[in-house]
């Protein structure tokens, strides 16, 4: 067992993990942060996306030990302490950017990472950025629309679907 310590959502977190413990496992099972979802466990679906030192990564494909000392942000950090949703979360609600909701934590974390680098992305840029986030309800249209809205762009001309 190895002792790991990291900052998770602004708070110090530590625990004893095996070498093979994934960051997603550490977050969900050691810290109880079950907002990070594990959809495929094969790095394809993106439901487990979190930010490690500001970069979007698939937490099922990074060892917890690799994140030792890192600053990790999960979906639980995105709303304000009083429950007020952030701009991306609110836009997902306003534009029906989720159906079953399973992929949503990863979609939101990817969207937040995208908007940090590219504050006003085109539809094509959003779709390209979400290549590694799969929505099996196939609700991509409203996810893309929500991200455009969250970036402050006018989406009134985009049909609701």
């Amino acid at each position, binding site marked *: 067992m190895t002792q790991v310590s990291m900052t998770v959502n602004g708070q110090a977190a530590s625990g004893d993990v095996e070498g093979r413990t994934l960051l997603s496992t550490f977050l969900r099972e050691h810290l109880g942060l079950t907002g990070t979802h594990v959809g495929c466990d094969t790095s394809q679906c993106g439901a487990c996306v979190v930010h490690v030192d500001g970069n979007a990564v*698939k937490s099922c494909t990074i*060892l917890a030990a690799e994140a030792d000392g890192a600053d990790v942000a999960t979906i639980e950090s995105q709303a304000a302490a009083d429950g007020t949703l952030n701009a991306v979360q609110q836009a997902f609600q306003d534009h029906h950017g989720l159906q079953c909701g399973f992929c949503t934590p990863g979609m939101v974390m990817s969207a937040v990472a995208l908007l940090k680098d590219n504050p006003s992305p085109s539809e094509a840029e959003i779709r390209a950025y979400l290549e590694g986030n799969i929505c099996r309800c196939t609700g991509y249209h409203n996810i893309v629309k929500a991200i455009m809205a969250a970036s402050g762009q006018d989406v009134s001309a985009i049909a609701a679907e």
Partner: protein
Amino acid sequence: MYNFEFVKPSTVAEAVSALGEEDAQALGGGQTLLPTMKQRLASPSKLVSLSGIADMKGVSADGGVLTIGGGTTHGTVAAEAGAYPALADLASHIGDPAVRNRGTIGGSLANNDPSACYPSAALASGATIVTNTREIAADDYFQGMFTTALNEGEIITAVKFPIPQAANYQKFLQPASRFALVGVFVAKYADGVRVAVTGASEEGVFRWSEAEEALNKEFRPDALMDLKVAPANMIGDLHGTKEYRAHLVGVMTKRAVTAAG
């Protein structure tokens, strides 16, 4: 995945020492190795992470050569390899953004997946693979699917790319995996054109020498009109027959020449 001992050295020397143990395995970004271990297709007793070695990260251009640390992520190459735009563009289309934030150029070249993008860039550029013990020319480095000139425990510390006059990479996506069904990298240097093909051959990345000869005479897509790749050594699977891949090699090479101008 089976359990293993995890170590994260901060220098190349410490990593080489840690890799001396039997069944120890270097870990780059883990975007291929960890899924492989989950499938129990690999079960090293010890993983030696290279991600803590600062000397192996970064991109720098000097005297017409772009040097990329072996531990540099695809995302960093995409953002910082502006001196070699075709290479930056290739890096910006590997996997997806989250994968690009972890996966490394050294890891990709050490694994030498027959459908990976970077091997075609390294071979078409006549790159030099720098390890902890020596420098290996790309022409000597790639030795077939998942096979390279690397010895046990040898680490790619950097890759040196001569910057070409013009270059382009064209990838035809395998629609499920998004790896290259066929990818062609064309690079034009003062001393000649090099064409490297990934995704297509049973023997891994290869140079298409007939196309190079034709393009040396005339760097135009029409120069390739009469050339055909023999299907015999192509990969044939449910995503595409040997003949289909052989045809695509010609199509993607023409597109790359057109785009490179």
